Every structure is written in structure tokens, then in C-alpha cells.
């Protein structure tokens, strides 16, 4: 890049830079200052009941516009066919037809695999790493290494694991790490994501590897919130590490575990990128989000919207669980 083009590029970027460095902080500051200004003008009695709305307001507006409005739009569109004729619940009927071997039911079954295995494995590994690294002096370095897979984009993650699962015929030198590992034990190599018996689990394994860093970081933050004196006192009293974990750490981290778990469950429901890039739903690995994407591609907006609504509705049991947890924490206060 020569100097002139560099200069012109930089000049073209000045408005963007100005917006980012000056504009954005200014708007945020305006919101904080302006909000407080508004609150101060309110009558004293009304203040406690109206202030929450000013604090919650922008969030609600953003979410209403970018998420709620499209959801309602999607729900509305799911009642029409591709030519804008009203068809009621027909789209849902078409999608959910053919239980249990219909396409959507296989996807639902797979989503359930993801829901259970992915969530549990990520939570277990995340918790383990958070707790164990807390006790070693090289904590930062280890956490960075465990976190690295999260810093990789989904495409790169899929690339890594496709190499990992590579296959060469028996007798030939293996190119895939997993098959090479099997070869160390004189086992024959096998295909992983192209075999319907294990494909789902192979994909979930790749996703777990990618996401443990997420659980670890958040659980680690929660762990740091447990006052050191509590743990020291327990140790002084002779409690073993395992007991401390079971009786002190785990219960105190439970709310955060619920938050991480909920996020993971919802991610499992929406799992798309990994499945799309590695198998596109072949070999019995299809998931709901992938079905929706394929329908959108061909302009089947009615059916695609129905799948989207099924996805969103599937999260209701999770919400109920959260509500109960929420109430329990509130009661204890």
C-alpha cells in the first residue's frame, strides 16, 4: 500500500473513527446524564417507581425492536404459505408430520442429544477447569489455553475438527489426529462424522471442545466472588477439598451454574454453524436451525417461520425452571 492510498483510506475512515471514539461514548454519557437528570425532575414519591423504567427502558426498546418485533412477524408469517395465502396451522402440520421418522422429528431428536450431552459436558468440564485452575499459580496461562478454542471462529473450528476426524484406509499412515490415536493402540481407523451411528456425538464433541472456555470463564468469575475467608475458615476447620467443593463452593455457585446451563441449553437448541459446515444435516445429524436455514434458502418463508417458532417455543420449559430458581433465590434474601 503506497502512502497516497494509505492516506486516502485513513481520511475516508475519519468519520467512522470520530463516531466510535467520540460519538458512541457521547451518546452513552448523554443517556446516563440525561436519564439521571430526568429522574431528578420527578416528584420524590414517584421516583422509586419510575426510576426503574428509565434504567430498563433503553434495553426494553432495543430488545422490543430487534427481537420481539421480528418474532411476532415470524409467528405471523408462519400462518401463511409462500403465496401469502392464510393457511393457519398447516405449516406446523407439514413440518411435524411423519412422527417419528419425519425430518423434523429426527432434528428434534438430535437437538435433544445436543441439549443433554452438550450442556452437561460443557458444564462439567467448565466447572472442573474453573475450580482447579483457581488453585494453581499459572492460572492465567492455563485459562488462556482453555479459552483459545472460543476465540476461533466457527469456520476454523469446523476446519480443525474435520482434520481431526480425517480418515485414511487401514494400513496407510493416518492424517487425522483421532484415527492416529487409535492407530497407537493398533485399532483400525474409522470414519466419524460420515457415519450416522456416531456422527452426532462427533459433532457434539467438537462443539463441547469449543465451548468449555465459555463456561470456565463465567464460572471462574462466580468462583472469585466467593469470599476467601469462607474457604479459609472451612479449611482451618479440617474440611477436605472435596467437601469444601460440595458444601461451600457448589451451592454458592448454583445461580451462576443455572445461568450458564440455561445459556448452553438455548445454544444447543439453536445449534447451527457447526452442523451446517461439517455435515449440513447429512448422516442423521440435522438440527432444527439447519432445517430452518434450508427452507429460508429456497424462499419457503412460511415453513421456515414455523420451524423458528417451534424453536422459540421449545425454550419454555427452560424458562419455567429459571423462574423457580429465581423465586428460590428471592425467598432466601
Amino acid at each position, binding site marked *: 500500500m503506497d502512502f497516497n492510498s494509505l492516506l486516502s483510506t485513513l481520511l475516508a475512515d475519519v468519520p*467512522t*473513527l470520530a463516531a466510535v471514539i467520540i460519538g*458512541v461514548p457521547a451518546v452513552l454519557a448523554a*443517556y446516563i446524564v440525561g*436519564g439521571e437528570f430526568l429522574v431528578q425532575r420527578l416528584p420524590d414519591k414517584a421516583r*422509586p417507581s419510575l*426510576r*426503574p423504567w428509565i*434504567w*430498563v427502558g*433503553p*434495553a*426494553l426498546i*432495543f*430488545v422490543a425492536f430487534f*427481537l420481539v418485533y*421480528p*418474532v411476532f*412477524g*415470524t409467528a405471523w408469517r408462519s400462518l401463511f404459505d409462500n403465496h401469502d395465502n392464510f393457511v393457519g396451522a398447516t405449516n406446523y402440520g407439514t413440518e411435524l408430520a411423519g412422527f417419528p421418522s419425519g425430518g423434523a422429528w429426527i432434528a428434534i431428536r438430535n437437538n435433544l442429544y445436543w441439549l443433554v450431552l452438550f450442556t452437561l459436558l460443557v458444564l462439567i468440564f467448565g466447572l472442573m477447569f474453573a475450580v482447579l485452575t483457581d488453585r*494453581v499459580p499459572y492460572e*492465567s496461562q492455563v485459562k*488462556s489455553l*482453555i479459552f483459545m*478454542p*472460543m*476465540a*476461533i*471462529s466457527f469456520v*476454523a473450528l469446523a*476446519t*480443525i475438527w474435520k482434520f481431526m476426524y480425517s480418515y485414511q484406509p487401514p494400513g496407510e*499412515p493416518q*492424517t487425522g489426529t483421532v484415527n492416529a490415536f487409535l492407530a497407537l493402540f493398533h485399532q483400525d481407523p474409522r470414519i466419524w462424522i460420515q457415519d450416522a451411528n456416531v456422527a452426532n456425538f462427533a459433532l457434539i464433541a467438537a462443539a463441547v471442545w469449543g465451548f*468449555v472456555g*465459555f463456561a470456565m*470463564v463465567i464460572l471462574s468469575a462466580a468462583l*472469585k*466472588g*466467593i*469470599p*476467601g475467608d*469462607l474457604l479459609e475458615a*472451612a479449611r482451618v*476447620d*479440617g474440611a477436605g*477439598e472435596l467437601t469444601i467443593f460440595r458444601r461451600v463452593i457448589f451451592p454458592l455457585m448454583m445461580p*451462576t451454574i443455572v*445461568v450458564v446451563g*440455561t445459556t448452553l441449553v*438455548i445454544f444447543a437448541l439453536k445449534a447451527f454453524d457447526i452442523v451446517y459446515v461439517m455435515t449440513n444435516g447429512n448422516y442423521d445429524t440435522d438440527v432444527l*436451525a439447519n432445517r*430452518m436455514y434450508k427452507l429460508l434458502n429456497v424462499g419457503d*418463508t412460511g415453513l421456515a417461520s414455523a420451524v*423458528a417458532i417451534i424453536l*422459540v417455543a421449545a*425454550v419454555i420449559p427452560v*424458562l419455567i425452571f429459571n*423462574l423457580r430458581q*429465581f423465586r428460590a433465590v428471592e425467598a432466601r434474601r
Partner: protein
Amino acid sequence: MTIASEQIATRAAERRFSPDWLGQGFSKVLLHVVVLGITLVWIVPTLGLLVSSFRPLSAFASSGWWTALSPPFKFTLDNYSGVLGSSNLGGSFFNSFMITIPATVIPVTIAAFAAYAFSWMKFWGRDFLFLALVGLLAVPLQATFVPILKLYVQVGLTPQNVGFVGLWLVHTGYGLPFAIYLLANFFRALPTDLFESAEIDGAGTLTVFFRIVLPLSVPAIASLVIFQFLWIWNDYLVALVYVGSTPEVAPLTVTLAQLVGSLGQGYQLLTAAAFFSMIVPLIVFFSLQRYFVRGILAGSVKG
């Protein structure tokens, strides 16, 4: 906090014999072995990618990456020079920053205020709104593209007119549910005594928020910043839909994706591209690590 206090009281009453010095030493060694061992296994795939990024294309399909670690060494910098030589790399790197930083700062700020309101203020419909927020985490993003994009086009929020503003707003909308959910959880865990003593001292809500709640929630906020930054930095689809892939506005993810042809030609460049792109989120992660410290809360109430 009351549960833990009870347990400590119980323990104190029991007064058991503590493990001896040798036993403690052994479990220390075991700890290190376990941590290092699992970490080593965990980084194997990433290590494989790193080594592969220094190998020529012809080696990929013929031998595993670990064979490159023993002689003859056939390393090459071709993949990296291919990435670094791609057109618009610097420009898209800049674009990624211009997209990611505001799209991280805005939702974190808005979420902090909203999360505090959800955790410590009482208002009509609070629980229902919070649950609805969590439920919105499940909305598949693809379902939102057409309605929002249509509105953007009608209102003129296109990259030609306002640059990345539309994208910042969209990422804020998408990121708020998780951000509020996470922060509310941490805010709620703060001890009630804190707020009571602050009230006694006559501190206003804003002061409590800025001087007490935020400093005590630094690990939580640091986590949120890490993830929000990361997800937007690695985002491909949302940027593609709302700003497109022309060189002026393309972020790094789009530029790097274009290294590979429609039939997959040049996929070996993806190995180097992955590491190149990974640098910035890792720097963010590493530099925020110092906020993951314990003991900020300790002694705060007794002070």
C-alpha cells in the same frame, strides 16, 4: 451468605483433625499433574491447527500434522504470506475494530443499568419481563434479518449513509438478553447488607451503582466484555447481511472467508487465517485476566 455462615459454625463445632503435611504435598502434586495433563490434551487440536498453518498444501492430505514435528522439516510461510497479502486486510482489520468496539461498549452499558434495575429495584412486571428477556435468547437470528433489514432500507440506515451504526444497533439488540441475564445474576448475588449500609450512609442510587455495585462486579463485567467482543469479532453472517462484503465495510471475518474459492480452493490458507484472526480476542482475554481476582468482596461489609 447465611447458608455458608451456618456451615462454618457447624464445622467449628465439630473440630476435626486436619490432614498432615505429606498428604497435603501429595495432593498438591496431583493437582498440578491433573491440570497440566488435561490442558495438554485440550490444546492438541489447536496445536494441530498451528502446526498445519506452517505446512504446504501438498502435505495436508498425505500426512498428519504431527509428522511435521520430526525431521525432515518442511515448514513454509506460504499460508501466512497468502493471508497477509490478501487485498484489504488492513482495511478490514480496521473495520472489525470499528464494528466490534461500539457493539461491545453499548450493550454492556445498557445491560448494566437494566440488570441492576432487574436485580435490586421493584417495578411492575419485573419478573415477567426478565423471563421474557431470557426467552428471547432462543430467537434464531436468521428469522430477524428480513424484517429488520426491510425497515433499515426504508429508513435509510444503510452502510452508505451511516456506516456501521445500523450494525452496532443490531448487535446491541441481539446481545442484550444474554448480557442482562448474566449481569443480573451477579448483581443479585451481592449481599443485601451492602445496600443497607449504603442507604444508612445516605448514598443515592447512582452512587451505589457506580461506587459499590460496579467495582464489586468487575469479574462479571470482564466476562461479559470478553464474550461480547469475541462474538462480534468472529461474526460473519450478521455483518454480511447488514453491511455487505464490499471492501470499504467488510470486517476481517468476511475478508478471510473470501480467501477460499467457491470449490474450496485455498483452504490451507484458513489455518493461518484462523490464527491471525485469533490474536485480537486473545489479547482482550489476556488483558482482562487481571480482573478475575478474588477478595474484592472480603471485608467490604465489616469496613
